């Protein structure tokens, strides 16, 4: 049935967007983590979305998948804090390269996309229900 693959498509988008939301949460939570298990300051992480066809016979209809998570390679932000044990000789501490404002904007964008895809699924559900009731 054709309409039920809408659930696969929108479902894949829900998974992808919730993963993006998770990373935003991780970035904001670690916006002040000047060290980590590797000893380096935390780096911002971002998802990479890729369009993937849902079935071989319909190459034009794509779902979405998170194919990788990349670390932000921009340099860490320097913060002057001589009392910090991690401070260098000049009194600067390497802080994560996370911009909380950008992360908030990313969060709003992810949650809006999530909502839109839920609406698409609801519409497809209504259409399927009406089709099942045909002729009654």
């Amino acid at each position: 049935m054709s309409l039920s693959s809408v659930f696969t498509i929108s479902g894949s988008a829900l998974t992808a967007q919730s993963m993006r939301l998770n990373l935003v949460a991780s970035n904001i939570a670690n916006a002040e983590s000047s060290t980590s298990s590797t000893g380096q300051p935390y780096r911002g992480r971002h998802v990479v979305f890729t369009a993937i066809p849902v079935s071989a016979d319909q190459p034009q209809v794509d779902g979405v998948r998170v194919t990788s998570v990349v670390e932000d390679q921009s340099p860490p932000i320097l913060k002057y804090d001589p009392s910090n044990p991690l401070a260098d000789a000049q009194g600067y501490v390497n802080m994560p390269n996370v911009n909380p404002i950008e992360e908030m904007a990313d969060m709003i964008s992810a949650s809006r996309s999530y909502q839109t895809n839920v609406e698409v699924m609801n519409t497809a559900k209504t259409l399927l229900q009406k089709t099942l009731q045909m002729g009654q």
Partner: protein
Amino acid sequence: MLDAIAKDFNFSQRALGLRAYRTEVLASNMANAETPYYKSVDFDFSSAMKSAMAGDDAGKNLALNATDPRHFSTSPDGGAAGVSMQYRGAVQPSVDGNTVDMDLERGAFLDNALQYQSTLTFMNDRIATLKSAIKD
């Protein structure tokens, strides 16, 4: 007799198939609203419908051979067959090469869902008419 009824529903059935497929295509566009380099696709419904109905006669070679009048008549099912997919022109091109315009997609999705429901309503009315004709 049954064949006549089946023919009667042929048009609506094909319209529903194409509408369902378009729902899928639009859901795929919305799922990939933030995938870099994803190009928004859509198809022209009226020309797809025309080619589906033309293929009804032309596509007879795809049907099973009926060597006995009691065999079921099988014509290729509408769906995605004969649909020529086209890329949508970007209204506001974005830096990541994505051409999905969310407002446009949502508008098209809503319109498509309503058209699907109206086709269903016409079909239901037709079924009610046939039913009352059978009862009398």
